[in-house]
Each structure stands twice: as structure tokens, then as C-alpha cells.
């Protein structure tokens, strides 16, 4: 047993040496963010208790069929706009419950991004950097876990369910990797021990004894990482009852919609309530190159109750003011309708929605032209979006990390938070 203070309580000797080397000599050593994640900064952010839920529309939702309708135009399609709680803001008729929450939403109709396909778009919209870069950038979930997560918590700081990001923790290191659940939000079968609790405890104690003996002669970092991961897994198992929604789901399933996505949104609410810093919930079926309208209608009938109930519950529990809820995918969809009744990928003018913590709701930011082909006002890049998100969460978007000697910022050079969107 180490008689001294644990690593998280002080800057480790290794981190100090690496940081010193970087600063003084510019030598090639990765610091894994060890210096930046000082207890002082983390505690400061933690006091604010900010959380984030990302509703990820995998495949790319159509902006014209959701939040930027073009009725009567050749690009309009068959969906009709409806009035919402906020005069002047109209959204799709298949989001009627969400229409009652537009006072909480900031709809950005002027996204203009750079990565048009799925893998690169997913990476770009999770990291705000292009996939082609050689630097392994961390996903937003890892970044939020690092700055808003509690390292001493039993629960992971970054949980995701269903189809989600593809970048992982990148240069932030393995401690910020996501903890992934299935698309139904359930834990894997192997999280249920096949021996009773007492036997499990004896096994753990025996393992720790052997590991302690082993560690006396083996000081390499991978061994320590392995031990840490194992201990964290055990801690997680102690807290795993939070992932069990079977008891409370019947009470809420009508409001959230009896779907996988609805259940995952409900679990997301439970997790942020329990202190998890970042939860990502993916919804599939948006990549509608064919039959776009029936796909989107079916999806919105899943999305509308789930998203609305999530906002309602967060609000009712006083959590919404500190929980940023993001709705986005990797691309938008073409204004023109192809000969498969579909819409293809489109990145020149599309929509993302923010709500809750740090965001001024009840507004539309930016605009597209009459057919939705081009951004007319206030184009927003990936970097601008992430700078806005990080600012809303209390994370400095110009936070600097080192990959070797190379400084890397949380958002690309020139990215600016959109002040109009911030509360």
C-alpha cells in the first residue's frame, strides 16, 4: 500500500517532470493533460456543477424537415411548420411537444461545416477538429469529463449509449475514455457477477493482495493503469444500480416514449442527476438517402417525447440551468429531394439546437436563404459551436494541452463563442 498521498491529490512527480521538460526544453513527452488538470481548476469547475447531455442524431438529421422548414418551396417536402411557445419560431409539425419548450431552445440555423461524410463528420462534430489531422483530438465528452467530472466518483464521468462518437479520449488519455452502454441503455451481461457478494469480496481481496506483492517489484505505468482500471470497474459495479431503469421506467415511459431512445434519455437524466458530467445518447436512422420523409417522421415521433420529457424533468429538478443539452448530428441533409425520395448529406447550411445550462433560450440564431441552400446570416463553424458550448459549460475554449511539445487548444485558432447564444 502506498503510504503517501494519492496521485490525484498532488501533481505527480512524473507529470511535474514532463511539464518541466516541456516548458524548459520543449522535449517530446506527452503530458496527458496531467498538469492542466490541477485539483484547483477541477474543484472550481466542479463547484459550478455543470453537466452536458448530447443527443446525437446519427447519420445527420434534415434541417428542412425539423427546425428550418421551407413550406411552399420546391425544397420544402411534405412536412408543415407549427407555431411554438415562442412567437415567431416555427418548427416541424412532428415535434409538437418540443414546440412547447422552444423558450428553452437556441436554434442555430446557420451551421456551415467542412466534413461531409459520416466518419469524418462524426469525428469533426465530436472534436471540432478535422479527422485528417494527425493529432488525436479528444471528443467533447472526454473534454467535459476532464474538466467537469469527479475523478473520485464511483460513476464514470463520460457515459454514452447507442450510435455515438468515434474519437474517444484522444490525447487526454485513457482515464477519460467513454463508458459505453448498448442502444437500449442496459449494462452488458458480464456486469452481473456469477458468484455471490461475499465470494466476490474475497476474490477482490485476494487479487489486491497479489497485486500489491506484484507491484513491489513492477513499477511500470501500465501495471498501475491496469490496477486503477480494475478498481474503477469495481467501484462502478458498486454504483451500477443507477443504470437499472426497470423499476422507475413504467412510471415515465409514456412521457419519454416507449422506445430505446426514450429509455436512454431517461437514463441520461438519472445519470446527470447522480453527478455524471457528460452523457451522450445516440439515435439512429437519420441517414435517409431514401424515403427521407417517412424516416424522419418515424424518428421525430421517437425524438419528440424523449427530448421534451428530458427537458421537463431537468427543469422540474432544477438541473436544467446547469445542464447543457445539445441536439446535433454529423451533417445536415440536402435541400433538394433526390429520386429515392431521399435527401443526401449537406454541410453548407444546416441546424443544431442547444438548450439549458448557460444558453439563452427562445431564439433562432442565423438564417438560410429561401430554399435552404446557403447561409444568409451569421455562419457558424465547428470551432465556433464548440467555443460556445465550452464557454456555456465554464470551460475555457482556449484551454491548452500538449501533445509532446506541441500545444493544442480545445478549439481551433479563430474559433469564437457566439455571445448572443450565451445566457
Amino acid at each position, binding site marked *: 500500500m502506498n503510504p503517501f498521498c494519492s496521485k490525484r491529490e498532488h501533481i505527480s512527480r512524473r507529470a511535474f517532470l514532463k511539464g518541466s521538460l516541456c516548458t524548459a526544453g520543449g522535449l517530446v513527452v506527452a503530458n496527458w493533460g496531467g498538469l492542466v488538470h490541477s485539483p484547483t481548476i477541477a474543484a472550481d469547475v466542479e463547484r459550478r456543477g455543470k453537466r452536458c447531455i448530447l443527443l446525437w442524431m446519427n447519420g445527420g438529421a434534415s434541417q428542412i424537415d425539423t427546425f428550418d422548414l421551407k413550406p411552399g418551396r420546391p425544397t420544402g417536402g*411534405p412536412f408543415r411548420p407549427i407555431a411554438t411557445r415562442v412567437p415567431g419560431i416555427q418548427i416541424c409539425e412532428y415535434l409538437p411537444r418540443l414546440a412547447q419548450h422552444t423558450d428553452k431552445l437556441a436554434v442555430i440555423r446557420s451551421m456551415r461545416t467542412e466534413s461531409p461524410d459520416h466518419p469524418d463528420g462524426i469525428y469533426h462534430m465530436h472534436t471540432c477538429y478535422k479527422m485528417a489531422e494527425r493529432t488525436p483530438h479528444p471528443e467533447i465528452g472526454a473534454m467535459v469529463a476532464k474538466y467537469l467530472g469527479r475523478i473520485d466518483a464511483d460513476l464514470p464521468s463520460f457515459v454514452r449509449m447507442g450510435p455515438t462518437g468515434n474519437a474517444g479520449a484522444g490525447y487526454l488519455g485513457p482515464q477519460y475514455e467513454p463508458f459505453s452502454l448498448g442502444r437500449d441503455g442496459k449494462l452488458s451481461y458480464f456486469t452481473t457477477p456469477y458468484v455471490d457478494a461475499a465470494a466476490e469480496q474475497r476474490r477482490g481481496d485476494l487479487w489486491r493482495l497479489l497485486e500489491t506483492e506484484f507491484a513491489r517489484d513492477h513499477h511500470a505505468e501500465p501495471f498501475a493503469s491496469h490496477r486503477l482500471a480494475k478498481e474503477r470497474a469495481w467501484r462502478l459495479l458498486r454504483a451500477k444500480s443507477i443504470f437499472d431503469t426497470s423499476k422507475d421506467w413504467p412510471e415515465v415511459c409514456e412521457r419519454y416514449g*416507449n*422506445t*430505446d431512445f426514450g429509455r436512454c434519455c431517461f437514463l441520461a437524466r438519472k445519470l446527470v442527476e447522480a453527478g455524471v458530467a457528460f452523457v451522450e445518447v445516440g439515435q*439512429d*436512422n437519420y441517414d435517409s438517402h*431514401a424515403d427521407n420523409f417517412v*424516416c424522419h417522421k*418515424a424518428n421525430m415521433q421517437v425524438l419528440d417525447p424523449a427530448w421534451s420529457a428530458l427537458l421537463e424533468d431537468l427543469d422540474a429538478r432544477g438541473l436544467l440551468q446547469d445542464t447543457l443539452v445539445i441536439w446535433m448530428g454529423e451533417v445536415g441533409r440536402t435541400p433538394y429531394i433526390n429520386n429515392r425520395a431521399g435527401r443526401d448529406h449537406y454541410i453548407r447550411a444546416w441546424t443544431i439546437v442547444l438548450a439549458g445550462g448557460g444558453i439563452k433560450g427562445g431564439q433562432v440564431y442565423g438564417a438560410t436563404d429561401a430554399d435552404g441552400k446557403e447561409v444568409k446570416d451569421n455562419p457558424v463553424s465547428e470551432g465556433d459551436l464548440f467555443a460556445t458550448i465550452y464557454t456555456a459549460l465554464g470551460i475555457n475554449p482556449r484551454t491548452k494541452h500538449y501533445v509532446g511539445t506541441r500545444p493544442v487548444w480545445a478549439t481551433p485558432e479563430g474559433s469564437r463563442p457566439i455571445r448572443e447564444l450565451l445566457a
Partner: protein
Amino acid sequence: MPEPAALGQAKLLWTLPFDADWVTAVCFLGSTRRLAAGNNLGQVLIWDLPEQPDAPPPLPRRRLDGHTNAISRLVATADGRWLISASYDHTIRYWDTQASPQGQETLTLNARAREEAGRRGGKVPPAVEATVNVQPATQVLRGHRDWVSDLALSRDEQLLLSGGDDGWVVLWDRPAAKEQRRWQLPAWAYAVALSPDNRQALVSERRPLVFDSSRHAGVRLWDVTSGTVQRDLSSDFKGIYISAADYSPDGKLLALGRGGEVDGFNGKVFLLDPASPGKPRELSPGHQYGITDLAFHPDGRHLASSGRDTVVRLWDTAAAKVVQEIGKPRGSQFKDWIHAIAFSADGRWLATADMAGAVQVWAFSA
């Protein structure tokens, strides 16, 4: 009625431009020479077809105003007077095609083609203009709260059956324009068909999600008199979306078509006996990417199917063989669709609703 041998030869008589948007529905008005077609915008036009097959393409005579979203189905009474339309605007409308018009308007039937040619810098075709009488609907049925996806008229014209994306199937008293009965499905209604004796209905169901556990595909036969399930065929069509259905005139055969966008040539036609259980017969080849519509020929022996491959196939249902393929696959990897098909009452003509913005009229001749 053409001899069976004549069905093997189809000649394109006219292509009628209607390029404001995709043509989605087509119907002959009873035994008259009048033809109606509707499009994605909710516009409905009526043409009087010439007696002479070598006459120039006719221009539309009427426009029926009122729908505000796509027309999903057109049906008509045998006397040709009443046209009934179902739409994504949640309504079903009755149109008296003998009513006095309320005014006239001039349309450019190829406006979109001209605009596109101009934008591409190509040769702009001359405008095809028509002066049409315009009229409103005489009756509007508002029994659905979402898209009315399909509509069937009984052979005796006493009943209408509609299915909607609201998950409701509604049986209507057609002459009284009143709702008789309704029943709810676990998902959206897709295709509906009524048996000739008015006792049975086929309704297919869908919720087109890909991965969510609430995805749904179903096919059931219903007792129309009670609104209860007679037979659940879903296990025979596991995971398959049935987009089109039609009973043969004698009610002994029920044809079903696989729709949505499917891989390869799996847009199959299935035939089954609606009165007794048994495995459905499968007709090959299937349409590439899926079936859009089915229509029995008035002779009861032949069936037409249309697909997302710009092709109409005419089948001999007894022999389970293709008699003729009408039209050719066009375009590149993905083709335009033939959205809907309709036979004339005498079985000599076939009309097709072409996604590219036209109605084609084909004639069968010996």
C-alpha cells in the same frame, strides 16, 4: 376486354406533362375516357382522352383545388362522376366531376422542365399551356390526424376504407360520406384493400425505424363487419413492408407488393388465397428497389405491378409469369419511380403516374 394475347403488346399512346411535381396517383373515371392524376403538391388534373390513338396528347380540362399536400390515392365511381382523393393533408375529398366549374386558369404544364433547361443553359422547350376549369371539392372527410396513406373503394361503391399514419383504419359509408367504423393499429397503416364482398380488408403496417426496438412491420386481414383481426400474416412477411395490395375481381386472390427501398431485385409480388391459410406464392423477378403499386386487370387473371425501377410488369397470375414488361429502367444507379398504375374499365388502357412529372397512357392491342 382485350384478348389475353393482346396484353402481351402495349403501345405508348400519350405522355401527358404534369411536371409541377412528382405525379403520385392516377385513376380512370369509371368507364369514361376521362383520366385523373394527382401529384406531390396536392394538385389534381383531369384529362379527356381522345378516341383516336394517334391523336396528339390531350391537354387537361379540369383542375381540382383544395388539397395542400401529396395525393396518395385516387379512386372513382363506375359512372365516372365521382372522384375521391386521399392526401397527406389528412383529408379525403369528394369531387363531382360534372359540377359547374368556378373559374378558369391557364397552366404551363412543363414549367419545371423549362426552368431547369434554362438554368442549365440548354434549349428551353416551348411552353405547353392549357386553360383549365377549376373547382373545389364537394365534401371533405376529416377522419385522420396524419397522412392518409391509402384508400380503397368497394366494388359496389358503398364503402370506402382509408388507412393513415395516425395508425387508424376508417371504414366510411361512401354515399353518405359518414364514418361507419374505425380500428387502431400498432403502427402506421401503409396499404389497404377491400375484398369484393365487402367482408374482409387487408391492412399492412409499418413504423420505419432501422435499429430502435419499436420498429414495426405487419400484415393483417381484418373482418370489416366487426373491426377484428381475421388472420395475422405478419409471420409470413417478417420484417417486410407491404406497400401495395389488391384483391382480384372475384376475391379469390390477394396480391401484395413489397415496398420501401429494398436491396436489389427484392421488390417482390406475393399472391395468396385470402380465404384460407397457406404460404404466399412469390412472383419473380422482383422490381428493383421495391414495389409502389399493384392493380388487377379487369379480366381478373392478370395483374400489373409498378416499381422504383421505372418499370411496369404485367403478370399472368395463374402461370405466375411475366406477360409483358412496360417501360424500361432509366437513369443510373437509382431510377425514377412509377408511383401508381390504373387500368381502364374495359382493360384496354393502362395509365402510369411517373415521378419525373408525367402521366403515360398505354394501349393493349392485338
